[in-house]
């Protein structure tokens, strides 16, 4: 992290001196597939989404213009949309905070390891590799109230474990634990950031008599601030699109065979795992209320764009000067 990867040409390097005639043709040729792709799979759908959000549309009949009715329903009348928004905000906040604290703590321990660092890194990254469906199955098994290892072990120490994925109060905390278990990627990124902190900084602080906690607080954390920022944005985006784990956990815990969940199991138990994207999917692809699902998508898009703008702002500031073309 100390060595900025973008060592872009200093003014005066050859590519600057010799702009070729028709110099925009070549970039265009290199970018052509991507530009077509953005037009077809990004710009067009975004426009279509906005249009659908003002219509009533069931995929079979032509869309009927209904003005702002979908938005009005979303904001004022749909109690499940409110519940879903609450669940998503809950997950975004709790996951972002706990994931950052947990990952920073684990990375700080790993940074101090002298023997077997590679092994520990592998162990911690292993769960992050598991397909989310598999990881969720692992957790529904571990935390199954009757015979699961977690409640078994809790029983040994005299604690009666909760019903976890079958209890509305414990389902989201259980999903949060699952998310922490698969946070190996963020841990590795933070660890790399910590290992890049120049040793002289620590030595200087050591001479000044700073203890390890103060060194961590005043040197390590500020040094890895950009990585922490990335972790925050990454966690928020992760929380906003929380879908797979919620759907699979609900369907497994309720004992349904339906891969996508049905009305009966979606959000099980008691809509506690009904996230905003899950409700959006249910509206669009189970009830075929595609106009309404589009309005929900626009809402999700607006919120995630706010965080994207933060990210871009930071990114541009971070690479200031080099990027000013």
């Amino acid at each position, binding site marked *: 992290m100390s060595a900025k990867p973008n*060592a872009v*040409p200093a003014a005066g*390097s050859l*590519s600057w001196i010799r702009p070729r005639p028709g110099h925009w043709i070549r*970039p265009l040729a290199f970018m052509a*597939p*991507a*530009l*077509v*792709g*953005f037009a*077809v799979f*990004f710009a067009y*759908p*975004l426009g279509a*989404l906005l249009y*659908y959000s003002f219509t009533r549309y069931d*995929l079979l009949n032509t869309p009927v213009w209904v003005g702002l009715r979908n938005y009005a329903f979303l904001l004022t009348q749909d109690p499940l949309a409110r519940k879903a928004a609450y669940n998503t905000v809950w997950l975004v906040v709790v996951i972002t905070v706990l994931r950052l604290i947990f990952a920073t703590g684990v990375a700080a321990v790993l940074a*101090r390891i*002298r023997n077997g660092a590679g092994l520990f890194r592998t162990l*911690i*990254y*292993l*769960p992050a*590799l598991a*397909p989310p*469906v598999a990881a969720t*199955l*692992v957790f529904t098994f*571990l935390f*199954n109230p009757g*015979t699961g*290892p977690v*409640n078994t072990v809790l029983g040994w120490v005299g604690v009666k474990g909760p019903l976890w994925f079958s209890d509305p109060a414990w389902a989201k905390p259980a999903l949060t634990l699952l998310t922490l278990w698969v946070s190996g990627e963020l841990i590795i990124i*933070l660890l790399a*950031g*910590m290992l890049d902190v120049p*040793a002289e900084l620590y*030595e200087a602080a*050591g001479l000044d008599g700073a203890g390890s906690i103060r*060194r961590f607080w005043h040197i390590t954390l500020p040094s890895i601030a*950009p990585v*922490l*920022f990335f*972790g925050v944005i990454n966690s928020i985006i992760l929380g*906003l*699109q929380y879908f797979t784990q919620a759907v*699979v956990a609900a369907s*497994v815990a309720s004992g349904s065979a339906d*891969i*996508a969940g049905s009305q009966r199991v979606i959000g099980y138990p008691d809509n506690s795992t009904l996230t905003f*994207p899950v409700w959006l999917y249910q509206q*669009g692809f189970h009830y075929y209320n595609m106009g309404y699902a589009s309005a929900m*998508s626009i809402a*999700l*898009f607006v919120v*995630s764009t706010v965080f994207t703008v933060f990210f*871009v702002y*930071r*990114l541009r500031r971070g690479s200031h000067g080099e990027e000013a073309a």
Partner: protein
Amino acid sequence: MAAALTGVTPGPRSRRGVLRWIATHSIALAIGLMFVLPLVFVALTAFMSDRQALTSDLWPRSWHPENFAEVFHTAPLLRYFGNSLMYSLLATAGMLLSSVPAAYALARMRWRGRQAVFLIVIAAMMIPPQVLSVPLYVLWARLHLTGTLWPLIVPYFLVDAFSIFLLRQFFLTIPQSYLDAARVDGCGDLRALLRVLLPMTRPGIAAVSLFCFMYTWNDYFGPLLYAGENPDKWTLSLALASFRGAHQVQWNLTMAATVLVMLPVILLFVIAQKSFVRGITFTGVKG
């Protein structure tokens, strides 16, 4: 280096150093176990008898490796494996064809609108996949391609924002002087890319390919959206999600299936560990 990092002034031979060594390594060991024990329990349960899998036992009384064969009998795993493999391999190949040149143009060419296109890349990268699902589904339904995995594969041959972003990061690490030298030798952009940049960023290309493969392999939302109604085209993730429901109380078989689905990914990781770690650290570098 490690010693300097920890900021521990007393040498490891001193008594405090030894205590500190024991303390940090015990904590690390506890953390490592926390990450791995769930997988151990899963693997152990996968070997249990049907009867024992219903108890809260943690260790199998008798070992039943035939559970894994049983999984193959109860579900057409090989077909799902084939579907997953097709999705992941074609998507990765398409991504390389489309994203490498695009990343080169963004990292190494100067043109008006470059900044704007880079912003689009980031916006597309950050957008939750559910947001555009309605219009994209309508689009693919009009083309009569819903019920297949093509709606997931085809876009990779045109654009994959995350891969472009990451490849650009890798291309930016190569000092401009190498490319200038190539240019002096009369290389055009295409040859500079193929002869200079690609060989020098091979680890980066490997990491981006791995990420793309893993993302598609692990994808659940995409296959659910387009192929959920057509079990012939299910991927391993989709099939696994339905497995537990169909085998209600048989945790041993469910866990055996889970192990089988995780195995290819873990093998891939063991083979290509270095590329993984390099790639991961790179995603965060730019913060």
